């Protein structure tokens, strides 16, 4: 631990002084804490929490919150969760969890561990709903006095919509002493609702654009109030909220559309490679996706308790498994059907049936669910009223990475060059000494491997089952055909736009009709432009 860049202090005296200062600071902090924890006031405060009627407790909570004791937050939180319990000897303890026969406990007063205590020897401090509300408010205001402005800001934002008359004066007092601008704004916002209720027009200013339901209700009430000025202001603010909500809805849909689109891109891009380069219709592509997803599930079985690590490991593993199956498929079946696309379609379809049934008999016909690691679950609030789920964000990111990687492979590697050569003129490429059959094999392995990656990603969004591939195969073909065969960018644009269009249509007509509409649209589109959005032109392509 290097707290000071010591050489900066020129003389040894100064250095010594600095060291001493550091030690003194530490001492003060440690001693101060100990002193505080052992103060008799704290013991009394704590005791008041555990005894008396609900009314007494209510007062006790207020005094704990006002006392400024460093353990206050811990106590109040434990009390709210029902983890603050009375032990047999009359001392208050905090237990780690409330389930189980014997509970791990520590002393509430100083946090000293006490080992495990049988549950029947403990008694929970009872609270009611009113106390619960009060506790939440108290916990929130507690953090308002924290050192870190970010903590204060979060606490102030958390107060929003929960400010009752008791809290108002408390918060207003905080507002006086608060210097951080953003914390002040958050506090103003928290205060705005009760102020609005009291008929304060200026409060509306702080509520502009808020997506909270309580705000909307309060403003609607205000808009109907007798005060003309108030009503007009509220009406205007409501309009703005409505517009903001509209934008949010729109953004939300865009997000879901992009998310669905990136899944489509992931599922289709492997197909775009095999179909585009080799002209091979691989109906087993969906099953290669499925294998990738099952690889993730398997790894999670082998690494219990570490779902995140398993998912990370599944990325290379899923790629390898699917690529290996792809290689076997290419060598065993597709190679013999060169130049007969319809037969290839049928044979690979047969393989897809076999793979599905294999999974059904070897693992289970039932769906398996893959655990989403902690760092991928939950959501992030981007702006007020718009939160995006993390797993979808990760999948989008993953899709983008896979796409860029493929682009790089195609553009910058020897394999990419050979692949492009073989696509454009197979006979010529062979004449130039490119081993077309080896390129075919590698291309197919690459496309299959990418399908496996798609499966890993999908396992984070949906259930994993033997027939999951079937759900994606038609969509994937639609994407490839729509985008133009053999064109990665076309696949990207097609996948994303199909995803967005689908999501955009869904609220209007329902999920099924939206899907039908998209299918019909593509069927009509292909009639108009048989070679997709970005066709390969020229004589070679016509052949």
């Amino acid at each position, binding site marked *: 631990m290097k707290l000071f860049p010591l050489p900066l202090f020129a003389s040894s005296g100064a250095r010594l002084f600095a060291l001493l200062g550091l030690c003194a600071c530490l001492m003060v902090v440690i001693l101060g804490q100990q002193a505080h924890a052992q103060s008799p006031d704290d013991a009394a405060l704590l005791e008041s929490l555990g005894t008396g009627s609900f009314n007494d407790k209510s007062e006790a909570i207020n005094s704990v919150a006002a006392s400024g004791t460093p353990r206050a937050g811990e106590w109040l939180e434990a009390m709210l969760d029902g983890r603050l319990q009375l032990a047999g000897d009359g001392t208050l303890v905090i237990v780690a969890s409330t389930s189980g026969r014997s509970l791990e406990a520590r002393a509430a007063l100083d946090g000293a561990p006490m080992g495990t205590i049988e549950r029947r020897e403990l008694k929970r401090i009872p609270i009611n709903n009113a106390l619960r509300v009060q506790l939440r408010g108290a916990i929130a205001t507690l953090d308002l006095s924290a050192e870190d402005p970010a903590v204060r800001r979060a606490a102030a934002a958390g107060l929003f919509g929960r400010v009752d008359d008791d809290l108002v004066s408390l918060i207003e007092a905080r507002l006086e002493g608060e210097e951080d601008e953003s914390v002040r704004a958050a506090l103003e916002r928290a205060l705005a609702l009760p102020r609005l209720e009291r008929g304060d027009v200026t409060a509306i200013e702080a509520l502009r654009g808020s997506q909270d339901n309580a705000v909307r209700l309060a403003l609607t009430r205000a808009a109907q109030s007798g005060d003309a000025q108030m009503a007009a202001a509220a009406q205007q603010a409501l309009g703005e909220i409505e517009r903001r909500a509209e934008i949010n809805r729109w953004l939300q849909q865009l997000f879901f559309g992009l998310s669905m689109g990136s899944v489509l891109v992931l599922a289709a891009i492997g197909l775009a490679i095999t179909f585009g380069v080799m002209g091979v219709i691989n109906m087993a592509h969906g099953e290669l996706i499925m294998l990738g997803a099952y690889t993730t599930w398997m790894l999670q079985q082998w690494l219990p308790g570490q779902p995140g690590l398993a998912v990370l490991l599944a990325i290379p593993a899923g790629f390898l498994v699917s690529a290996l199956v792809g290689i076997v498929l290419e060598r065993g079946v597709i190679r013999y059907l060169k130049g007969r696309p319809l037969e290839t*379609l049928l*044979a690979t379809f047969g393989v897809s049936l076999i793979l599905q049934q294999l999974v059904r008999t070897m693992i289970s016909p039932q769906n398996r669910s893959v655990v989403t690691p902690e760092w991928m679950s939950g959501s992030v609030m981007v702006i007020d009223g718009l939160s995006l789920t993390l797993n979808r964000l990760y999948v989008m990111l993953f899709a983008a990475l896979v796409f860029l990687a493929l682009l790089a492979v195609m553009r910058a590697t020897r394999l990419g060059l050979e692949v492009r050569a073989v696509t454009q003129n197979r006979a010529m490429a062979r004449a130039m000494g490119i081993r077309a059959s080896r390129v075919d094999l590698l291309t197919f392995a690459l496309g299959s491997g990418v399908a496996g990656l798609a499966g890993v990603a999908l396992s984070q969004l949906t259930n994993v089952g033997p027939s999951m591939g079937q759900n994606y195969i038609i969509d994937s*073909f639609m994407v490839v055909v729509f985008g133009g065969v053999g064109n990665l960018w076309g696949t990207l644009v097609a996948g994303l736009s199909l995803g967005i269009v689908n999501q955009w249509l869904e609220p209007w007509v329902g999920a099924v009709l939206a899907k039908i509409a998209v299918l019909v649209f593509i069927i009509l589109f292909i009639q108009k432009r048989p070679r997709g959005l970005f066709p390969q032109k020229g004589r070679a392509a016509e052949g």
Partner: protein
Amino acid sequence: MSEDFAAKRAGMAHGWLVRPWHERSTQVFLFSVCAALALVTMLHLALPAGHPLHVSAYTVNLLGKYLCYALLAVALDLVWGYLGVLSLGHGAFFALGGYAMGMYLMRGIGERGVYGNPELPDFMVFLNWDRLPWYWHGFDMFWFALVMALLVPGLLAFAFGYFAFRSRVSGVYLSIITQALTFALMLAFLRNEMGFGGNNGLTDFRELLGFDLRQGSTRLGLFIASGVALMFGYLVCRALICSRLGRVGVAVRDASNRVRFLGYRVERVQLYVFVVSAMLAGLAGALYVPQVGIINPNEFSPLFSIELVVWVALGGRATLYGAVIGALVVNYAKTWLTSAMPDAWLFVLGGLFVAATLLLPQGIAGLLAQLRRRKSAKRDEDREALT
């Protein structure tokens, strides 16, 4: 081979519809089907139930179902074998024909349904509908349902084919969008709001033209009707194939550009044959439904459509009779395996796809032809040895 061409040319002297009658292969086919129908009927009626050779009503019903599949396979072979259009959506036409017939049978239930509503089928009562949707009108008449069973698939094929062939969508592209078509239809028919019974489809049929569907005699009648329909479909296809139009179709299959530069309208040839094929598929569906007693969106599933492709592939493409053989063999295997080893069926089906394309590109029909050729070659050798 030259015999064959000579026969074809001899046939040209007659009207296009009677041409196939003069072909030996057609004669053999018709005779075989008639003989099979007669044999099954006899074994069913004449022998007592306990007799080892007795054909039960259940088996008759099963065979009737196979014959419908065979007709469907013939319809597919017409477009795949002789036009080069691999439709992965022929199940859709089959199912549409089936739904048309199902609607008639549904209306025929009348007051005997669970809810006893004389007008509305049960599922509509269940959905709280108070009146019949407009497209259900007229289906109380058998002739109307039968016409619709042909017309609706025909119209769909026309609308779809018109756009597809006009913009020269061909090969795998066409296959994929036909698959998308049947997939879209399946999704649509799964919806309750469509008015076709949603997921459950149409079922609980009672009678057809006044005959109780559960009676053995009705089943026998339907079995024979299916056989007759198969012969009819075969003759229609054969007549088409023997005409100059049929030869243009084969030409389109092999070199569509050349055909265009000869002055033929390729898209119209394709459209015409495609529509005829779709109508035959619809007919097969219409006969299929009263025999199995249910029609639901499953028949629209891409799996079913592609499964029927393997019947044709295994039987032998571009032979028609091969399609019939394939449909019978695969479906018999399916019936047997799904009861004996349910898990194994999909392995076998998948294996059939791979085997039919890799090992038997000509199918069973090709194998038979090869055997025949080998035998005749041997006969020639023997004759030479004798002289």
